[in-house]
């Protein structure tokens, strides 16, 4: 057993864990963040995507100890059911969700992209979600949704700027 400290969705945790515990199992089984999905368990599908220190990672490929001292965002940290993030709202409004299994990972990849690149091209968006497999949607409405969310976020950004 080993002690780790980490911050998930803005909250600090101090935990004792097995050395070989994967990050995904820590998040899902120990901390209850079951929005993080396991698809392949080998770094191919992106269903388990979380944001670690601003970058997307496959939580099935990391050991929990690798997150020691770091900040993690899961889908639960993006928005709540009655207070959705613009990316989530945009996914809902534009029909981007079919079975939904890939969606938490897609939203986190989108978030990581839009945090860095406020005005991405459709090519940039496709690139950013190319590590997230989706069997249902053909990606098109997901790309549409991320593009529309970027416009909404930009508009909100400039509005809050005007208020200052």
């Amino acid at each position: 057993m080993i002690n780790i400290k980490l911050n998930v969705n803005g909250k600090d945790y101090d935990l004792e864990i097995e050395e070989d515990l994967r990050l995904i199992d820590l998040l899902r089984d120990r901390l209850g963040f079951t929005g993080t999905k396991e698809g392949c368990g080998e770094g191919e599908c992106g269903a388990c995507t979380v944001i670690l220190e601003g970058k997307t990672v496959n939580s099935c490929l990391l050991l929990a100890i690798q997150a020691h001292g770091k900040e993690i965002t899961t889908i639960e940290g993006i928005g709540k059911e009655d207070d959705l993030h613009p990316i989530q709202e945009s996914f809902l409004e534009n029909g981007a969700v079919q079975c939904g299994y890939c969606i938490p990972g897609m939203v986190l990849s989108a978030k990581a992209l839009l945090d860095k690149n406020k005005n991405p091209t459709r090519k940039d968006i496709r690139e950013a979600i190319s590590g997230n497999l989706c069997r249902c949607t053909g990606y098109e409405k997901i790309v549409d949704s991320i593009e529309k969310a970027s416009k909404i976020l930009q508009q909100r950004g400039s509005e809050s700027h005007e208020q200052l």
Partner: protein
Amino acid sequence: MKKRGKGIAVSFYGTGYGNGFPDVSTATIRLEDEGKISISVGATEVGQGAKTVLSQIGSEVLGIEIEDIVLINEDTSKTPDSGTAAASRQTYNTGNAVKIAMESFRKKLFEESKELLGLNTSIGLETKNKEVYLKMFPQKKTTFKEIAQKLKKQKRRLEATESFTAQTTEMDPETGQGAPYWPYTFNCYGVEVEVDTETGKVDIIRALCAQDVGRAMNPTMIEGQIDGGFAMGAGYALFEDLGLKEGRIKNNKFSKYIIPTALDLPEIEKFIIEDPESTGPFGAKGIGEPVMIPVAPAILNAIYNAVGVRILELPATPEKILQAIKSYGKV
């Protein structure tokens, strides 16, 4: 060298179980305590949008908002059988069952309203915004909630259950004659590809998909189905290979079984063709499987148009294309 080519394919597809097999969906409609309307159907939602479309059909009949519908599905202890979420049949079959059950529920609702309003007949009653009113004298009205409260006091329930069975006949095994499916869905897809004659790699650079839907209940979801079908068809044509060897699947993980990523697909131009089907709920037909079918032939035709080779075994991998180009291609 990169060579471009265009290809088209058309398909028609009979939805439902077909060939005279009983294809039945049942729906139960009930007035709930607060005046909400529940629809119980054993239709499974797997992301295709059955829940949305069935609620839409139900709300359309009663002129209420989709929020006023409580859809109960996927619970066999509570729902009648509505068949499988397969054969592209839920919108057409279960959609019809919901529509018919809702119409018979509306009749019962009008009978209750007649009593409650002290009318001689239910003729001329209409419903809108969870109210039942007399068209020639709209002040004469009651609400779903009032009716529900009255029924609750009398310990009665207002509900209607109806079934829909699709019409097909078995094919004659000798002559092949019969009407094995109804309805059929039609489509036509066109693609443009770019084939790299040195590596054999195929890029799909343009896709146009025209899909007959009968009547578009929910255009956004139809587009989503077309996008998804195109992606599945493209994977089938170019990448996906189970690698079955002696009954075992060789490519049993995503590192070997390759499905398209967002970078492997072009922007998909979609054309929804509406030609209402007279036996469909509000004219709608199913498109779940049809949207996949013309993709592979259109891609293979485009490859032929680009480099003159006919790929006869899927997937059309770079190796197969390169070999065909070397032996007889025109580049």
